[in-house]
C-alpha cells in the first residue's frame, strides 16, 4: 500500500470512527512520553512539563513483571467466572469470595504444614496472627501442600454451594441465580471473617531474589506464581481441546439444548465446570496472596471487579479471553503507575475496559470461540 493510500485510509478512519483517532493520539502520546521518560529528559512548554520525566528501564521492566504476575493470577481466577457464565449462564458474584476461600484454605494448610511438629497450640498454628511468613524457596513443601489444598478445598466448597444453592434452582432465570450468588458471596465472606477475623495478616514473603537484568529482580514466590499459573493455563487449553470432557464443555457452552439432544450428560458437565472453575479460583486466590504477601477476609471480593473486568475485556464466556483479559488488565493496572498516582491505577484498568468495549463490544475474544 502506498503512502497516499495509507493517508487516505487514515483520513477515512478518522472521519468515520473519531473515537479510534482520539485513542490513537492518546496512545501515541503515551508511547512518546514513555520513550522520553526512559531517556531521562523532560520537555517543558511554558514551564509546564509536556512529556518526559524520569523512569529507569529497570523499573519499567519490574512494572511489566508485576503486571504480568497479577494478570496471570487474575486470569486464572477469571477462567472459572467465564466458564460459569457460558455454561451455567449466570454472572457468579460469589466468585470473588470463592477466591478468598481458596486462599484461606490453602494458607491454613501451608501454615499447618510449616509448623507440623512444632510445639504450639493448634489455634496458633491455624490462625495467621503469629507473624509467620512463608516463601517458596525456604518452605517449598508447605507452599506446595497449600497449593493443592487451595485447589481441592475450593472444589469442596464450590460443590457444597452448588448442592445447597444452585442445584435446587437449576432452570431458574439468570437474574435469580445472580441474586442467589450475591447471598452466597455474603455468607461465605462473613463466615471467613467469623473464623479468621477482619484484620489483614501477612502470610507470605519471599526469601530469595534472582537478579535477571540490572534493575530487574524476581523473587522465588513470583517465580512460583509464574510457573504454576502458566502451566495451569496450558493445562486448561489441553483439557478443552484434547479431552472428551473438555470438548463437551465447549459444546455445552456453545448450545446447551443441542448438547442435551446429542446425548451429552449435561448435569455431569455442569458439575465438572464447578470443579474446574473452583479449583482455578482457589489456586488463583492462593497465588495472589503468595505474590502480595497479605491476606484478608475480603480481598477476593475487592478483586472481583478486576476479575470481572478481565473476563469482560477478554469476551465473557471465552476462556482464552479470560486469560488474555487478565494479563491485559494486570499490565494496565501496573503500568498506569507511570502516569497516575497509585490510588488511580484501578481507574485506568476500568478505562481500558470501557475503551475495549467501545471498540469491540463483545470483548477481544467475544464471538470468536465460546470456550
Amino acid at each position: 500500500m502506498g503512502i497516499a493510500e495509507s493517508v487516505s485510509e487514515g483520513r477515512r478512519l478518522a472521519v468515520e470512527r473519531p473515537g479510534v483517532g482520539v485513542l490513537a493520539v492518546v496512545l501515541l502520546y503515551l508511547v512518546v512520553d514513555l520513550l522520553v521518560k526512559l531517556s531521562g529528559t523532560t520537555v517543558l512548554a511554558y514551564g509546564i512539563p509536556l512529556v518526559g520525566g524520569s523512569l529507569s528501564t529497570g523499573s519499567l521492566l519490574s512494572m511489566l513483571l508485576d503486571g504480568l504476575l497479577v494478570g496471570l493470577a487474575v486470569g486464572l481466577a477469571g477462567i472459572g467466572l467465564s466458564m460459569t457464565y457460558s455454561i451455567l449462564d449466570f454472572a457468579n458474584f460469589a466468585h470473588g469470595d470463592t477466591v478468598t476461600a481458596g486462599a484461606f484454605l490453602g494458607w491454613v494448610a501451608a501454615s499447618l504444614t510449616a509448623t507440623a511438629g512444632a510445639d504450639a497450640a493448634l489455634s496458633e498454628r491455624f490462625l495467621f496472627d503469629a507473624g509467620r511468613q512463608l516463601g517458596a524457596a525456604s518452605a517449598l513443601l508447605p507452599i506446595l501442600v497449600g497449593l493443592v489444598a487451595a485447589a481441592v478445598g475450593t472444589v469442596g466448597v464450590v460443590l457444597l454451594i452448588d448442592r445447597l444453592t444452585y442445584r435446587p434452582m437449576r432452570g431458574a432465570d439468570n437474574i435469580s441465580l445472580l441474586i442467589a450468588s450475591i447471598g452466597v458471596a455474603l455468607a461465605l465472606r462473613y463466615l471467613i471473617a467469623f473464623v479468621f477475623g477482619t484484620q489483614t495478616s501477612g502470610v507470605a514473603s519471599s526469601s530469595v531474589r534472582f537478579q535477571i537484568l540490572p534493575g530487574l529482580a524476581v523473587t522465588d514466590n513470583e517465580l512460583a506464581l509464574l510457573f504454576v499459573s502458566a502451566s495451569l493455563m496450558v493445562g486448561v487449553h489441553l483439557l478443552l481441546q484434547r479431552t472428551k470432557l473438555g470438548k463437551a464443555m465447549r459444546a455445552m457452552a456453545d448450545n446447551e439444548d443441542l448438547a442435551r439432544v446429542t446425548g451429552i450428560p449435561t448435569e455431569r458437565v455442569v458439575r465438572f465446570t464447578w470443579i474446574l472453575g473452583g479449583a482455578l479460583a482457589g489456586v488463583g486466590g492462593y497465588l495472589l496472596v503468595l505474590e502480595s504477601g497479605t491476606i484478608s477476609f475480603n480481598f477476593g471480593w475487592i478483586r472481583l471487579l478486576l476479575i470481572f473486568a478481565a473476563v469482560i475485556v477478554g469476551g465473557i464466556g471465552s476462556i482464552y479471553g479470560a486469560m488474555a483479559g487478565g494479563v491485559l488488565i494486570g499490565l494496565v493496572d501496573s503500568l498506569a503507575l507511570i502516569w497516575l498516582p497509585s490510588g488511580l491505577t484501578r481507574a485506568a484498568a476500568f478505562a481500558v475496559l470501557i475503551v475495549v468495549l467501545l471498540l469491540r463490544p463483545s470483548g477481544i475474544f467475544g464471538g470468536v470461540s465460546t470456550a
Partner: protein
Amino acid sequence: MSQQASRSTAVTLPDPAESLLAVRDLDAGYGDLQVLDGVDMDVGDGEYVVIVGPNGAGKSTVMKSVFGLTTYMGGSVTFDGREISKRRPDEIIHEGIGYVPQNENVFGSLSVRENLEMGAYILDDVPEAQIEAVYDRFPILEERSTQTAGTLSGGQQQMLAMGRALMLDPDLLLLDEPSAGLAPDLVEEMFDRIDGINEDGTAVMMVEQNAKEALRRCDRGYVLVQGRNRYQDTGETLLADQDVRQEFLGG
C-alpha cells in the same frame, strides 16, 4: 388421479409390538399448552415416514415428543417394544433413536470432527469406524474435518447434523425439516442423501415443508391438523387424493 386416501378415523392400528416406533393416543405439549391431541403414528423397521400438515399442526411436536423434549400429558410411545414416553433424551439416544433439530443443529465453535465425536459421547471411545462411515456418506465433511462447523454452508451444516445423529448408528432417525433454508438445488441433493440413509436400513421419520417432494419419496405419510391425525396412507395415495391435494398441498 381420483384415488382416495384413508381418513385416519377409518384405519385400524397395528399392534404396537409389531412396529419399530408406535405412538398411541399421545397428548403432549409445552408447559400448560397442549399441542398434540390423541396422535397415533407408526414407523416400521427401515420404513420412511413423512409428516405433513399446515403450520402449527404439531408436526415437529410429534418428533420432539418421541425424543422426550416435550411435556408428556397422556398416551404412549413404544420403541422396539419398550415404553419411552417418560424418558429423557439422553436415555432415548441409548435406545437407538437419533434426532436432528431444525435450527442451530451443529456446535458452531467446534470443528467438524469434534461435532461428530460429540454425537458418540455416550460411547467410551471415539468410534473411528463410524466416523469413517459418516465421511464416506458425506465426503465434504472429511475435507472440512478440522474447520469449525460455524464456517460451513447451510447445506454442509445440515449434513454434519445428520452425520452427528448417525454416529451411534440409530435404528430410527428423526429429521425436522432438513430442507429448511437450503438453496433449491441443494434440496434435491438433501432428499437423495436421506433416501441413501434409509436404503441402508435406518428408519426415517421426517417433518417437511416441501410436502410434495417428501411424499413422492417416502413409504408412508401422515397428514396432521391441529394436533390430530387427519389422513394416513402411502405417499403416492396421499399425493393422488383430491382432498389432500387441495387442502394441504396447494392443488
